[in-house]
């Protein structure tokens, strides 16, 4: 691998999840163990158990100045992305004129946000009721990355990543490489996903959803809780940010990604892909393992995922504290990696990490356990990692802003 020509710094962060409407709200929830979960209100189901979820309450307001054409009828996923982007852009201090003056790209991860799965449209179609095409038009005009590009008048590369649950991590990693290679000066990047009846039924059908609050890494863990949200970052080359007087909130130092090549929905039992992804991310970062202050694990609360992650972390990063934030946000699928990268940077900047909510009892089969109380951090570099359907393993090495 070649040494990056440029360093990627983070100048804006926006977050929206069931834990809160801003990054600050989310961090408060994580450190105070707040869990806003309950039965789904966005849709109805006929499941006997109403599996709890973490919904973003109410309608998502994405309205802001500069609304572009076609954005008034977008999917909830795109509205979540736009709302988080608004916070991130505001935090960066960048304006549309700044974006237009240089090559600005956008890279967004999603899962449901790119699926043509309107239940009403399809039900009408199969019932030969000749449905109108409004849902299709909304779908076609709601590509998350394209909508952000349109909203901010961006002229650089546009990419929507659909790598299931690692999409948000991958989007940030890819965006960072665009800056490192000099393809962009600025990139708006992250992930977004809405909660739908389709994913709700899908995860329940796979029998990996808990009908109680999830307990990542716990001996009694019994599955995940779904959530929704968006995490968006404004990334810039360090030189560009510094020249224009913007404050760095942190950096993406490296990104690693490897596929298990093992199974469609189960991780490799020895975590071979995850190990490779961690090694690659650290190698790209030129960061030694001992410099890692903590790991924001994927930590879904499913039997297989948590066992593999625990094993890999104990092997590669023994003694390094880790935890999962999904006990407070649920699993937000394509948004998860971006939300968690944002949390990781915020933790580095607060010099502390939150307790892994839901964990109380160590599991015999797991060699390492997450932190149970707020912990002060030693160091300014951390890892955020995502595992996904398809055997994807994606890892970001992140740096705080330092003193």
């Amino acid at each position: 691998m070649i040494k990056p020509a440029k360093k990627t710094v983070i100048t804006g962060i926006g977050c929206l999840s069931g834990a809160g409407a801003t990054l600050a709200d989310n961090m408060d929830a994580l450190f105070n163990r707040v869990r806003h979960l309950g039965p789904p209100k966005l849709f109805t189901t006929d499941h006997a158990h109403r599996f709890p979820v973490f919904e973003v309450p109410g309608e998502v307001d994405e309205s802001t100045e500069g609304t572009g054409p076609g954005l008034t009828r977008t999917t909830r996923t795109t509205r979540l992305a736009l709302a988080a982007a608004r916070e991130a852009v505001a935090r960066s201090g960048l304006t549309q004129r700044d974006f237009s003056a240089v090559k600005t790209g956008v890279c967004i991860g999603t899962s449901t946000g790119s699926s043509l799965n309107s239940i009403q449209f399809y039900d009408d179609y199969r019932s030969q009721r000749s449905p109108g095409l409004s849902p299709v038009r909304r779908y076609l005009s709601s590509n998350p990355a394209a909508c952000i590009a349109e909203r901010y008048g961006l002229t650089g590369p546009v990419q929507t990543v659909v790598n299931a649950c690692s999409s948000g991590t991958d989007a940030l990693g890819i965006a960072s490489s665009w800056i490192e290679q000099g393809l962009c000066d600025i990139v708006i990047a992250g992930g977004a996903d809405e909660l739908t009846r389709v994913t709700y039924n899908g995860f329940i059908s796979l029998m990996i959803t808990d009908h109680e609050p999830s307990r990542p890494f716990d001996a009694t863990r019994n599955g995940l809780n779904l959530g929704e949200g968006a995490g968006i970052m404004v990334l810039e080359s360090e030189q560009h940010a510094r020249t224009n007087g913007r404050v760095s909130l942190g950096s993406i130092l490296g990104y690693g990604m490897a596929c298990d090549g093992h199974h469609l929905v189960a991780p490799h039992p020895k975590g071979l892909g995850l190990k490779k992804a961690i090694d690659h991310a650290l190698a790209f970062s030129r960061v030694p393992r001992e410099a890692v202050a903590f790991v924001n694990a994927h930590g879904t609360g499913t039997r297989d995922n948590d066992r593999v992650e625990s094993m890999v972390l104990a092997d590669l990063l023994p003694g390094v504290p880790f935890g999962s934030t999904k006990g407070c946000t649920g699993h937000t699928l394509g948004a998860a990696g971006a939300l968690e990268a944002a949390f990781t940077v915020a933790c580095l900047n607060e010099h502390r990490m939150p307790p892994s909510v839901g964990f109380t009892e160590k599991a015999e089969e797991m060699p390492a356990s997450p932190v149970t109380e707020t912990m002060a951090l030693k160091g300014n570099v951390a890892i955020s990692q995502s595992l996904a359907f398809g055997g994807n393993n994606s890892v970001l090495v992140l740096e705080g802003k330092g003193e």
Partner: protein
Amino acid sequence: MRISVQGIGPLGCFGAGAGDLEALLAGDRVVHPEIARVERDGNIHEQPWFKATTSRLEEFIPRKKLRRIDRFSTMALLGASLAISDAGVSPDDLENTGIIIATGYGASGTTFSFLDSFLNKGDRLSVPTHFSNSVHNAAAAHISVLLGIKGPCLTVSQFDLSVPSAFFTAVNWLREERVATVLVGGVDEFNPVVGYATAGLNAGCSSPSAIAGEGGCFFLLSREDAGPGTGYASLAKVDMVDPGKTPVPDNSHPVILGSQGYGAGKGHGFNHSSLSYDSLYGHFPAAAAIDVGAACLSIKNKALFMPPQETGVDSNMIPGVPETILCLKPGNNNLWGAVTLESNTPDQETP
């Protein structure tokens, strides 16, 4: 750094493999569309579409391993296998290889099968295998598992710009030396629901050649460490531009335009002479990958393929031997994807 297209794996109504695509482009093969019967507003409409053939997949992967693989992933597996085979390498030699798949709609047929499962029998009886295979990156996962490729694995989806977007990241992965080779391709499937939607959206457009289709094309890309002259062509540049704000990349070269059959780009603000092959293999987002495959064949053969006159395109242009071909794809939000290929033979290599 120059990037070489070492092998191509096209598939569609014309068959599977470089030879079948070349036969179609050269006019040696004529394909007639299937007819889908689409009910709309109480009337039955006949909608032509080009159906891909996938039977060659069993040359590469035993049938027993394909039992749970849906049509979308079947096409992706075939395209990937063809590209690897065409490059003359074995999957065992692809240890440091990434996979990138572009798709406009993903596994739409399986997505609708999943909806059927709970609409028919209730939420509690949703079928898990339909759900797991409906995820957009399922095809990439099947390629990884069945061909044993364990590098980075990515799927992108942004309708007509999916293919240029995938190439953009493929080039970047090679430039930053994340991998030594990338298996990149585009794939889309046709199903009646998509047909119903696209027919409705295109209603009223004067687009006689905008026939729906399915299939795609895969490519094995590598840095030209192996020396010039290998493979089909060099992947010179990939870009996404807004022609209203940024000049379209140098179009002094022959242009292959994925244009939905609407007069080869007229109406998109593009007024240059161009070729369009939509009428041969159908219009769908991943057809942009077949366009790139056609460009590779043209450069390798040092001859342009003239599209049939009935496409309505200006075909009395582009003389000479193509050393550089630009593949343009108009997308949503005023963006265009631009993939530029050039000859990589030694006597034409630029210093």
